[in-house]
């Protein structure tokens, strides 16, 4: 068995690959288990047969990322050996279980802060509204918890990656 961590859009997902004889694999992606019959065709495309349905993927490795073109959509993913990923990310912020660090995914201006430290929030509760590209984008809690930190105020400009709030 080989173990990997694949990052798509900054979201790491653990992947386990078993088998490989005659191109037949059992692959666990996050919480999904797939039986895959995989063939690499002569021109470098991957033919994946899953549950009797055939899919064709174009895979091009370029620099750190891998670009996969599948059914009209293009994904840029990063594939890393599991052990290497663990060493690289050990001690990184936000890694503690049960802690949600809410970051700004894009630059903009905070127009509204809906929570204060000590507030109890449920999954889906609005936390912060950021105006960017003429739209107000509401950011919500991804899990229930207690707000331990609010690092922004209404009217403040934020950059991508800035921490907005921490929920425990």
């Amino acid at each position, binding site marked *: 068995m*080989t173990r*990997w961590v*694949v990052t*798509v*859009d900054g979201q790491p*997902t653990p*992947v386990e*690959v078993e088998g*490989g004889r005659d191109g037949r*694999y059992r*692959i666990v*992606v*996050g919480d*999904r288990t*797939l039986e*895959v019959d*995989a063939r*690499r065709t002569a021109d*470098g495309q*991957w033919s*994946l047969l*899953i549950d009797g349905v055939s*899919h*064709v*993927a*174009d*895979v*091009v*490795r*370029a*620099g750190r990322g*891998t*670009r*996969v*073109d*599948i*059914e*009209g*959509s*293009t*994904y840029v*993913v990063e*594939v890393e050996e599991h052990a290497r990923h663990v060493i690289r990310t050990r001690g990184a912020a936000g890694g503690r279980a049960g802690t949600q660090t809410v970051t700004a*995914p*894009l*630059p*903009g201006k905070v*127009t*509204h802060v809906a929570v204060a430290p000590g507030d109890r929030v449920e999954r889906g509760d609005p936390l912060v*509204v950021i*105006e*960017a*590209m*003429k*739209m*107000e*984008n509401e950011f919500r809690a991804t899990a229930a918890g207690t707000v331990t930190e609010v690092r922004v105020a209404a009217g403040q400009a934020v950059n991508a990656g800035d921490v907005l709030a921490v929920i425990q």
Partner: protein
Amino acid sequence: MSRIAKVLIANRGEIAVRVIRACREQGLATVAVFSEADRESLHVMLADEAYPIGAAPSTESYLVIDRILTAAKTAGADAVHPGYGFLAENADFAEACGAAGLTFIGPPPAAIRAMGDKTAARRIARDLGVPMVPGGVDAIASDAAAIAAAREIGYPVMVKAAHGGGGKGMRLVRREEELEGALRMSRGEAGAAFGNAAVYLERAILEPRHIEVQILADAHGHVVHLGERECSIQRRHQKLIEESPSPFVDPDMRRRMGEAACRIAKAAGYVNAGTIEFLVDAERRFYFLEMNTRLQVEHPVTEMVTGRDLVREQLRVAAGEPLGYGQEDVGWRGAAIECRINAEDPFAGWLPSPGVITGLRPAGGPWVRDDSGVYEGWTVPRFYDTLLAKLIVWAPDRDAAIARMTRALDEYRVAGVRTTIAFLRRLVDHAEFRAGRLSTGLLERLMPELTAAESSRQTLAVVAAVLAEQEHGAEIVQPAPTTAWRSAAQPAWRSR
């Protein structure tokens, strides 16, 4: 009215490019204006001259009337085209242009005031006996007044910006406890987008169709309509796909809607191109919604089926020429569809995606039109709306137009920023869209299905990437591509 020789375009992005193109074809000189964030933008490069008008935020550049008028004076322009958004529906701007001796390519200030103020427009329609959605004709003074008004109208209600358009500042409210939050967000968006935070309420008709009528009026009292556009595919009240004709409208309904639209335009003393928006319920009853006193984003679908260049018509009318044709001369042929290619991620809550466009390959081929404001290597600024380009197709009938749009979306490639392309491709191909069973609620209803399909594709991409990594040893690593997807050895986005 006077001759026009040199036009300043008080806008940016694809619409500035669109107007520059029409001016060029009419032999008119063009003047662009730009903010610090748009110094390298396409409209700046395509215009004959370009002038800086301030810092990146639109409140310090594209919304500053004095700076635009100064640029017009410096350039010796004799006319101003406002595009859409920014100052396009600002009567003070139209008036200031006139006072500065410039021809405003749009309606007279009085007509903008009458129709641009959505509450005044509702009064005009009411007095003409045009059917309207129940609701107030006045802006809401306070939260308490809003609560009282909403109780009288009956929930669900729609909160709308009195000076708005383009869906900004608009919120659906199903229950009283949601009203306060919706008012706050609407006022915030309306204030930021239009410089006026006034909002009003009307009854929300659930799952209606949004169908609008294009009108053209000259300064000699002639008004014609150019038929309808169906714009029911929306998210958060922002249109995403538009088409003409509407698959729901028959010739009789088109005639009745067109007549109502022309009557409203005449009553407002309207001149130039304008659009009357209607909501249409399942029983084909139509209700006046508002008038947009400007060129619409989706004007190309009307151009494609009528064969008339709306920006050219705007320039002619502004120069004082008569339309030169009547309603009986307006005909429609085939079907046209427009898809909006926005820098947004539909699968991540429609989050805007500013950044560098590292790869761009627009669609082409017969009856495919790319109204774009971007180029490869350009950075999508974070200060303005997300519209990158409009992809428009024409075909003899709706089915053929859908097939052509599907093909064109398959071809259209943008790398570096997230776009709506893959999402639109799935949507256009969906059975509900193909069948023409459209409503403003359709997109939201299809979201879970489209998102699940996307999630499955992403899982497949992960599987393919891991298998390729495992076989790494046996594989020849591609040379680093020269752009996002091109490489000398193997084009990754090949056709199949």
